[in-house]
């Protein structure tokens, strides 16, 4: 027998409400020859929505400055695990490192938007009468995100704009390569992000997306990661039930990804003496 040390392997789990539970269904699915990811059930998805709803008042009520700081902190923590993420992404080393760097940069880009989006999207409306009239953007609530296939950059590109504006979310990680997503959840868990702001599920898109699209306590739905047109249409139809705000496509870096999940609130008040 060799005296070589046996490595401790990692068991990948879900990320719900700031904790890392296994799927209540007890299921998992093989991702690589040696590693499994939890196969989340509809019940896990519902639990994740409950956690996201619970976190919404606190997160949306935090100052924009505070949210920006926390997102920047996520970028810091991600940078610190650069090599680990490159390992998990696999493939040619140089490309993997570029992916991680691009992810860090995107996080920093969106982090900076926290206290600027209101200036870009808010208006003072000169109505024909003696009133103060202001419109400002607000987060829509709980957003379900079906993450694109790029395991790390795609995930962060979908999640950062959703949460920087004050929404909370439930994310279904890329089905084929879910492991970097769970490792990213570890980054989130150590980044001052309140539990429940991001909840991450691994499993089958076709099993999880329709349930989230039909969930009556979900306010927004990002379908940019759904490739199958039939599934996309079925999700859009289900989303119509409670008029979820649906994003089907958007550029990776732009205001659309943020404004898709924001409402405009207009407040009137008489001006006089």
């Amino acid at each position: 027998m060799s005296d070589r040390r046996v490595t401790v392997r990692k068991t990948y789990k879900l990320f719900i409400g700031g904790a890392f539970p296994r799927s209540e269904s007890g299921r998992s699915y093989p991702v690589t020859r040696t590693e499994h990811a939890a196969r989340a059930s509809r019940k896990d998805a519902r639990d994740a929505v409950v956690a996201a709803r619970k976190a919404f008042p606190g997160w949306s009520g935090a100052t924009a400055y505070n949210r920006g700081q926390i997102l920047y902190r996520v970028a810091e923590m991600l940078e610190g695990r650069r090599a680990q993420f490159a390992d998990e992404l696999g493939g040619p080393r140089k490309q993997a490192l570029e992916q991680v760097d691009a992810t860090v940069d995107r996080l920093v880009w969106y982090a900076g938007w926290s206290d600027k989006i209101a200036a870009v999207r808010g208006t003072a409306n000169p109505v024909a009468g003696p009133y103060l009239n202001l419109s400002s953007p607000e987060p829509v609530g709980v957003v379900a995100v079906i993450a694109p296939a790029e395991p790390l950059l795609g995930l962060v590109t979908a999640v950062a704009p959703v949460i920087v504006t004050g929404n909370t979310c439930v994310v279904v990680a890329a089905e084929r390569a879910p492991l970097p997503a769970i490792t990213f959840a570890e980054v989130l868990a150590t980044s001052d992000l309140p539990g429940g702001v991001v909840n991450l599920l691994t499993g089958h898109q076709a099993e999880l997306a329709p349930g989230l699209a039909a969930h009556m306590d979900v306010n927004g739905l990002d379908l940019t990661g759904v490739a199958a047109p039939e599934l996309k249409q079925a999700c859009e139809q289900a989303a119509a039930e409670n008029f979820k705000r649906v994003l089907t496509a958007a550029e990776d870096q732009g205001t659309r990804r943020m404004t898709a999940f924001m409402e405009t609130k207009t407040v009137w008040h008489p001006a006089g003496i």
Partner: protein
Amino acid sequence: MAIFEYAPAPESRDLVDIKASYGLFIDGEFVDGAGAPFKTVNPATEETLAEVATASADDVDRAVRAARKAFGGWSALPGAERAKYLFRIARIIQERARELAVLESLDNGKPIRESRDVDVPLVAAHFFYYAGWADKLEYAGFGTKPLGVAGQVIPWNFPLLMLAWKIAPALACGNTVVLKPAETTPLSALWFADICRQAELPPGVVNIVTGAGETGAAVVGHPEVDKVAFTGSTEVGRIIARAVAGTGKKLTLELGGKAANIVFEDAAIDQAVEGIVNGIFFNQGHVCCAGSRLLVQESVQEELLASLKRRLATLRVGDPLDKNTDVGAINSAEQLAKIRELSAVGESEGAERWSPACELPERGFWFPPTIFTGVAQSHTIARDEIFGPVLSVLTFRTPAEAVEKANNTPYGLSAGIWTEKGSRILWMADKLRAGVVWANTFNKFDPASPFGGYKESGYGREGGLHGLEAYLDV
């Protein structure tokens, strides 16, 4: 009861020349419709005003093709030139304001005081406002590329105003439109078609197709329609959202509401009472953002209700063309039946019903201003949109409870706050999940101010800079 009686002051019907029948407006011409024509009636008298054509699916197809054909030229026109057409339309509306107000009151049943002082001036203002955007789109932040043909379906509560909300931004951005007015109020849209001709708007830029639900479905479902805009019930909005799913068409919806009008103990009571009356009895309560749920702080409930009842006793219900009238006719027999049914449910569930003594005309569709007290959150009348002059009164003790109750609805269109404390207004406005929050005022509208809802009140905004987003390829 009354100290003195008002002498009747009727507006002249002769200002409007209504023909016996009307066709569709397609490609700049009035044409026949293939469907069975329908009649539009004056809800205050039940007399038939005119017969109106029903557009079949083929007619809608012709209208969409006309709009498609016109799109090339219209969208290529420099914004400054498009603007001039919109300015022309706005001016013609002002010139024909009195005629339009009388027409609107005849067909809809709303008091002339409202059509003359609110609806028509706002219609003109909308065209003026968006005319100004046409050559400044690059400053709005949504790009400058129009979507193409817009299919628009509008309701009967503000027939001409909803038309303006839909058509003005669409044209300013370079789109062409096919609009379907409601079947109970088609006349002012057909008058608008005539105004388009007077303005020498290029044929096909605006097309009006009349008819009921089937015509609307044909507009929404037409594959050559690039953008769908709908204002109406949440129920129909849901059907449209499902139909549009997966088609790539852009969709905006303005749906129902069940607004909370929240009165704190420190509010100026007389002003609050005026705001409550304006909130729920304006336009017979046929307003999606009507303040249909009064949330009053327990400590001032009695005082406020006494004041409110006193004020209600002075409301004049009757002939919409009488300039003294405050509350006009319910728009249709169908709507009246719905209001009666929901009010009966209110009573059967245990709420207490009250109306001021008021004589209703014998003919026509009428419903007295009504308030329900002792309403609980679980009551149907506190949850379902009634779309009539019916107010449900609930109470609260703390600001947190007021927020909780106000937000306890699937809707999120509007809300009202009445308090003299500024910091409380800001705190409340922040917490309320509604697209429009009126503080110490209610039911105010302006083309410069975005309007639209959260949650099941629909998506998108109309009015203001935000209203351009719906008609540009963002």
